[in-house]
């Protein structure tokens, strides 16, 4: 059982890494220039030269989907990492020190969670103006709260354990206890939760881009490509389908990775006891 789950984790991790690799290397491996317009090949049906066809400006959709992967995958992973780091830090501080600091941080979490997440993200991205950084800020504003709550709960449970008392008695500083003795114990669960968040973050970023609140034209990104192409879907459905399917498959792969990781951690913790 453990073997099987471990295989699953490895498989989806490798798939995820391949996707990430493609997204980073895309500009160097595509045959056609994703930004080159071509008046002779407007809305061309998929063919040998243009595997996914072309859009209304004659740009190669295959190249745009591959190059768009960078703008769709990389920011999501980065955002999840940043919100995880920020959330863990604030959650650990709240849980470890308690008192006023805990009150301030947790009330802030309560207030942010009182906004419907996507409404706040759309509003913040809309007010800040469309750019990928602003879209990431808008989603990150709510993203860290999950990790902060989880980390706080875990730290509060751990801080009365004997090994923490022992660490304190042997003269470790609070910071050292937090980062050297507590963090490794909660890291596993945090990483699993982060992996579960990747898919929905990707959908969030693509959604903001679709609304015109993420990357700006002519930059290739899956959400904005779908938005651009939906106007002439009747003549060139491939211009919507290609980025749509790419987004769907990527989200599925990262969701499966999240599922596999949580299963793995679940099995490991029951085996430990």
């Amino acid at each position: 059982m453990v073997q099987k789950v471990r295989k699953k984790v490895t498989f989806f991790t490798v798939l995820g890494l391949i996707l990430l690799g493609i997204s980073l290397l895309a500009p160097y491996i595509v045959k056609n220039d994703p930004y080159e317009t071509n008046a002779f090949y407007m809305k061309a049906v998929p063919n040998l030269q243009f595997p996914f066809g072309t859009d209304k400006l004659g740009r190669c959709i295959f190249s745009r989907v591959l190059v768009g992967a960078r703008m769709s995958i990389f920011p999501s992973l980065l955002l999840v990492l940043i919100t995880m780091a920020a959330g863990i830090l604030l959650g650990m501080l709240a849980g470890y020190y308690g008192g006023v600091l805990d009150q301030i941080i947790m009330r802030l979490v309560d207030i942010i969670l009182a906004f419907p997440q996507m409404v706040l993200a759309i509003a913040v991205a809309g007010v800040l103006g469309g750019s990928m950084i602003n879209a990431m800020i808008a989603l990150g504003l709510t993203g860290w709260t999950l990790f902060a709550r989880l980390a706080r709960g875990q730290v509060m449970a751990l801080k009365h354990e004997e090994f923490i008392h022992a660490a304190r008695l042997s003269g470790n500083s609070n910071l050292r206890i937090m980062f050297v003795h507590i963090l490794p114990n909660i890291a596993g669960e945090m990483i699993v939760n982060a992996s579960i968040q990747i898919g929905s973050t990707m959908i969030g970023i693509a959604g903001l881009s679709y609304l015109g609140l993420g990357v700006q034209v002519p930059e290739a990104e899956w959400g904005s490509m779908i938005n651009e192409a939906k106007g002439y879907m009747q003549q060139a459905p491939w211009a919507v389908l290609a980025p749509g399917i790419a987004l769907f498959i990527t989200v599925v792969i990262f969701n499966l990775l999240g599922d596999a990781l949580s299963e793995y951690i679940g099995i490991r913790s029951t085996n430990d006891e």
Partner: protein
Amino acid sequence: MKHYITKRLLLLIPIILGLTFLTFALLYITPGDPAKKKLSAQGIAVTNEVLEKTRQEMGLNQPFMKQYLDWFGKFLKGDLGNSFKDGTSVADKLSKGMRYTFILSFSAFFLAITISIPLGIYTAVKQNRFVDYFIRFLCFIGNAVPNFLLAVLFIYFFCIYIKVFPVVAKGNMQGLFLPALSLALPLVSRFIRQIRAAVLEQLNAEYITGARARGNRETYILFRDVLHNALISIISIFGFSIGTLLGGSVVIESIFMWPGVGKLMMDSINARDYPVIQGFVIISAMIYVVVNLLIDLCYQLIDPRGEE
């Protein structure tokens, strides 16, 4: 119970203060003078004189906290300020659109419930059989399709390919179906999982074994005991779907031109009409908070063993 309600209501005060403060601050997180933003939204040429006059009118020369308290005071009276674009009351604009958004969200929720309750129960009863795996597979797929992609594909299939629905909704009954379906399907996959888990938990409970041992028929057990207890957990579904519905309405209403607050929000973002954006955010947040409070209270009423 009384003690619990008072406690929950008191906890609401700091949350509402925080919500309103953050919403008010939305106007100030972008660099630039709000008076200039207002004038450019109206398309008026910015001269020093006009600018100073607008600043006076908007109370921008006062300290930030004073401005916030004024805004908050008006908010308590139901006044959300006036639109930058046409000067009309934001509260009026929102209440006009809210009717449509309510119709759309309610239809979507109703649709989601009618699809997912039977399927959720069915998958639980047929646990680990082919149907169970198949429906769970579909749910997994549904979970990975963004709502905007779903809406665009629906338009392509139903409006262009087989031509059974109009592309532009125009707020009538015929136009309601596709936007409601696009909003509902992402909820369905979450609902089915939740309901399946709730029913399974009940089915594995000891009292069910007892009921079986007494010779009750399986359908009788299912409808009398299991559903009765599982339906309690379905209330909580409503709570978390409100947020998804409000956020989704912005996307879906813009795609289908449904004249609700979601479309108003998107139009206001494009027109840089900040008071309307603020109004939409604060009203959504208030609805979200109040609905979740009511759900918690319902829980407490149904099952007083809960917290404290």
